[in-house]
């Protein structure tokens, strides 16, 4: 049965391993944005044996880049929604190793990620695509920003969120994937179409 779950960061592995595809999740606490350049930078920093700007143990990575406005010295989120996750497919094992427990994005990911989710006890959460106002309203404030030299979309934005969702478990730590299921069924349907 599908369940609705509220989770607070830092996420605990046992809570994540309890989630199954189709479950709906809302997150309270801290989430951190990262996309193509942000992941490359994280790998670069790690390879140089330097310290990452934040601790990812029990952390959440949100594939996203916000629209922000600078008010005095502080940035404010205007809106923020998910970006297409498949671009970050090569980095799932790496972020699993950092202790990340949930990835939020859109469109799903592939088999490499599915393996990493099993190995580290992580979950992939599908955000409502394009819904940047709804999700932006759930960001209480920007806690911090790093690597702004990569540009606004690619920087690491550390966000304090409340009731962040609805997020649907698209891929779970048992190796299940809604996206894979749809693709397999779809292939069979196409074979019968003509």
């Amino acid at each position, binding site marked *: 049965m599908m369940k609705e779950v509220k989770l607070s960061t830092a996420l605990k592995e046992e809570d994540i391993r309890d989630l199954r595809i189709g479950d709906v999740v809302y997150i309270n606490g801290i989430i951190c944005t990262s996309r193509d350049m942000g992941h490359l930078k994280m790998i670069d920093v790690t390879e140089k044996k330097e310290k990452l700007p934040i601790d990812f143990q029990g952390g959440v990575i949100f594939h996203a880049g916000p*629209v922000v406005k600078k008010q005095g010295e502080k940035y404010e989120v205007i*809106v923020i929604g998910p970006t297409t996750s498949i671009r970050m497919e090569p980095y799932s094992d790496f972020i699993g190793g950092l202790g990340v427990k949930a990835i939020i994005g859109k469109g799903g990911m592939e088999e490499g990620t599915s393996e990493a989710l099993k190995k580290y006890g992580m979950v992939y959460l*599908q955000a409502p695509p394009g819904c940047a106002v709804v999700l932006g309203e759930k960001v209480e404030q920007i806690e911090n920003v790093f690597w702004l030299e990569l540009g606004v979309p690619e920087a690491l934005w550390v966000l304090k969120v409340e009731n962040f969702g609805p997020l649907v478990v698209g891929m779970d730590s048992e190796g299940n994937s809604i996206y894979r299921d749809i693709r397999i069924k779809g292939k069979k349907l196409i074979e019968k*179409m003509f």
Partner: protein
Amino acid sequence: MFWTREKLYEEIYNLIVDCCLSISPDAKDLLQQSLKKETNETAKSMLQTILDDVEMAKKLNKPVCQSPGFGTVYVSFGKNANLEEIKDIKEIYAQAIIKATKNGYLRPSMVHPLTRKNPGDNSGIGVPNFEFNFIPEQEYVEHILSFKGCGAELGNAMKIMTTAMLGKNYVGFKKFVIETALAAGGKPCPPYAIGIGIGGQMDIACKLARQAVSIRDWRDSNPDPLMKELEIELCDKINSLKIGAAGTGGNTSCLAVKIETVSTHTAILPVAISFHCWVARRGGLRLYPDGKKEILFRGN
């Protein structure tokens, strides 16, 4: 001359901002229809969130989606057009986009294609892109601005097919489109619309695909009976894959299929497929020489 540079700048800036704050009425209408028909609980919740997002954007004066996509402006004019009203429009759009970015309506997302450097204000070579068309008898200058999301671009495909690949009843073509939609899954932010360009050469088919989904009303009916039939069949077959809103299952992933064709060489069959996310940020202006103005794809 009625349409001075100042007047054009004001109209264009307002058009850009309005495109960020709302989606075109055809897309909204189709989203509402798909919510009514939806039976999958997850998809219902996704569709309701999408429609809530559209309403909240309007209420809070915020951009519907964080990503501005990539802008193309389709400009057409007739033989009596005053070129003084057209000559500066590339510059006007580029400047107005920079201003809209500074004002928090567009995220600075344009980067150098290789160095990936971001100037921080959506400036850059070829931003926005322009497609000019000369329609001799047209009495007005028409601009259609379309900010097309780039997650959707990740699902796109282009193939130079052949007569042999086309097969009986165009099965090869249909399979190419449907398989492309299945492979794209939830990446193009479903429910999406699909533009298909057929014919010409590679460049022509690709431009037609983008144009079909950008300047046509997603609810229109193709005047060519064969294309009309194909548009309906492909849309239905893609939806039968049950990819659903957000790509997590459901009845509607495809709101519309729009096909444009031109002739091609007997040796080739170029087919280009271009996805457009549900965030239909587009709007148009028809500017008449006497100062009359019509607004297209707006009014939500």
